């Protein structure tokens, strides 16, 4: 449990940072607002320095595919209105920026720091809004409720142990072990690829926080029974009994047989 609460401490620190940045940035952008803002809906006060930083990051790292004005293009879809959560999910899990050529953008080593992710998120959020992560700790929900909700809503794709699983035609639900609480929560809000979107009326904020807590526990707390064999269930168990069980015993019978 201590790992989880430490993680949530870190997250609330990020939350404070994000808030501070937004305030400072709001003053800044009062003087320096982006020009081509046809979809501008935010009041000027919520613009920020983060938005400005985010815009710079976006122009260098993302605009080749998503267009200079987030309008999208041949390389990628429009990002107007996808919301901060989508950015957190895609960039913090290393999926974006994308390498071309895969059925599904795989998780990679993230290219941006968490602070930079927040700047990108603030920028893209400023252009059309969309879902954002709720303030406060993301993991202060109820563990048992999270478990039940996870098994009902998520295990059919991600496996009850969080090991992930194959979907049709080469698509897959990834394993959840590397996901940070932010990415877990953002995944539910964003609904990437074939994953359904769990809006606040499907799963309330408290329920999503419970799931986030459970998934963090499930994947980080360790398993009591020894090596978890990848958590894929009976298939690796069968493999182990043949390779290790029968394998070692055949070697032992040969050994005994030789000492006849």
């Amino acid at each position, binding site marked *: *449990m201590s790992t989880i609460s430490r993680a949530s401490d870190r997250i609330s620190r990020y939350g404070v940072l994000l808030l501070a940045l937004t305030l400072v940035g709001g003053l800044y952008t009062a003087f320096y607002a982006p020009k081509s803002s046809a979809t501008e809906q935010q009041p000027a006060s919520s613009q920020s320095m983060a938005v400005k930083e985010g815009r710079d990051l976006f122009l260098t790292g993302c605009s080749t595919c998503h267009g200079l004005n987030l309008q999208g293009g041949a390389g990628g879809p429009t990002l107007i209105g996808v919301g901060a959560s989508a950015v957190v999910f895609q960039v913090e899990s290393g999926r974006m920026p994308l390498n071309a050529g895969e059925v599904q953008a795989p998780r990679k080593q993230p290219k941006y720091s968490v602070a930079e992710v927040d700047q990108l998120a603030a920028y893209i959020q400023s252009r059309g809004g969309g879902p954002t992560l709720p303030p406060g700790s993301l993991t202060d929900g109820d*563990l*048992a409720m*999270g*478990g*039940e909700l996870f*098994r*009902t809503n998520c*295990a*059919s*794709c*991600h*496996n*009850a*142990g969080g*090991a*992930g*699983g*194959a*979907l*049709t*035609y*080469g698509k*897959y*639900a990834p394993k959840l072990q590397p996901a940070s609480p932010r990415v877990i929560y953002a995944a539910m809000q964003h609904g990437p690829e074939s994953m359904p979107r769990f809006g606040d009326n499907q799963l309330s904020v408290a329920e999503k926080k419970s799931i986030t807590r*459970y998934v963090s*526990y*499930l994947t980080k707390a360790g*398993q*009591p*029974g*020894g*090596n*978890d*064999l*990848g*958590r*894929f*269930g*009976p*298939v*690796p*168990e*069968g*493999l*182990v*009994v*043949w390779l*290790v*069980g*029968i394998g*070692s*015993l*055949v070697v*032992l*019978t040969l050994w*005994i*047989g*030789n000492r*006849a």
Partner: protein
Amino acid sequence: MSATTHDDGPVLTGEPIAPTTLGGKAVAGSAAWMDDRISGSNFVRRSLNKVFPDHWSFMLGEVALYSFVILLLTGTYLTFFYDASTREVIYAGSYLPMKGITMSQAYASSLDISFDVRGGLLMRQIHHWAALLFMASIVVHLFRVFFTGAFRKPREINWVIGVLLMILGIVEGFAGYSLPDDLLSGTGLRIAYSIMLSIPVVGTWVAFLVFGGEYPGDAIIERLYAIHILLVPGIILGLITAHLMLVWYNKHTQFAGPGRTEDNVIGSRLFPAYAAKAGGFFFLVFGVLAALGGFAQINPIWNYGPYDPSQVSAGSQPDWYVGWLDGSSRLMPNYEIRELGHTIPLNILLPAVVMPGILFTLMIVYPWLESRFTGDKGYHNILDRPRDVPVRTAVGVMSITFYVVLLLSGGNDIIAHVFRVSVNHTTYAGRIGLFVLPPLAYVLTKRVCYALQRSDEELLHHGIESGTIRRLPSGEFIEETVPMPVPQRLALRGVESDRPMLQGPTAHGVEGHATGPGHGDLHMVETAPAKVRGFFFEKKASGSTAAPRPESSTPELETSGRPSQPE
């Protein structure tokens, strides 16, 4: 092993009688003591002097026996804490993520075993690993028996018992898998229920009878518990006893070798050599299982959660020994017959009822099928080397290939996920593989058998390369060969090795001999249609097969009367 049923079989004689080792003498003394009190005959002494041949592959069956013993021991421990009740309770044990969740008593007690009973998790894990090992060792034991022809007369009954044990093991394992009443248990039971429903006419009736009404009902766990800890283990125990008594009565088979004939057994005496070895081996099996139970997690029921019909987890698989049926269902296209208001779901009926029914029947009758084909009605106590009976070996490898394709298809979603291929492609690959790979395996195996026969022939006729290079006066270099040592030669030559004329170095170079048991089985020559027999034991080794062997005209007898020829 009960004294009354034991009798030295009429078939074999020739066990060494007097114990010579020190331990042997000590035991002989106490055996005599026992005999004086119990039987009046020298049964105990004779039993302890019973001879078992040594070959590593003869110990595979023992792995199954010892796993079963471990299943009994760990299973009994589990019964102290397990409560097979579907009564709903609210969990209050020490596993945090389940606190306050409503679940069945069966699931709650399984969680308690895992988290709150001392040594409980270890016992559960050893029990489950032992179940997997039990089934795996039955299967490898069966391979050994099949490929060496050990199922032939007079051991057909034991073959049938073996197949029954395997089927009962599957049933027992499935029942056990269902007991914890977690999500996987329930998913498995639901599939079992729909398999029962798929049977035409009686399906619904059978399913309701077994489940005590509509699925899931609240009777099934208690029923499975009785089946799991009483009924099936009882039958298995009885069959194992019969199995071992028959091994005792028929005596163990042996591979050809110096002094070994159809009429004797050469090996170590039961006591002390064999008993020490077997006892040691029990602890090795136990050690492997304890290590698995201690270090490798199996069936983490706390992750799957209590059974809830609205949930299903990715990667829900049965244990490996049921995996082939899951695989056949996954490969089967989605056909149904709708007639007169009834639906016959062929997509379940064929892969999960008809296919295994046919395969198990074929397995059970195989000894008779083979003897029908070869016309071989004789007794066999000397084992075949697989290469010497290419068709049987090829049939075996073909069947294993078929089975493995099904087994892999049962895990195709995991394979697809781990190797990043499309599940759809693995399904197509399985469908094609199921029909293409087995015949391929058949042809390849036969070829490998011939190649091995040929290399044996080579060794027999030209000897072993010695590594000494010699220069001939003509300037040519040759490598010297030495004739094979007699024991090895006898092992290669199979049954007929025992013929006096082949004993000793002079036998080297006897030409015109086809070697191997296939040709030594003379009774066949007289009974089987030559063509069929030729197919089964076909031999492509060097041209020497053509010449008829003069000594073929004296059929070897299977009856006793021959003294043993210990080496």
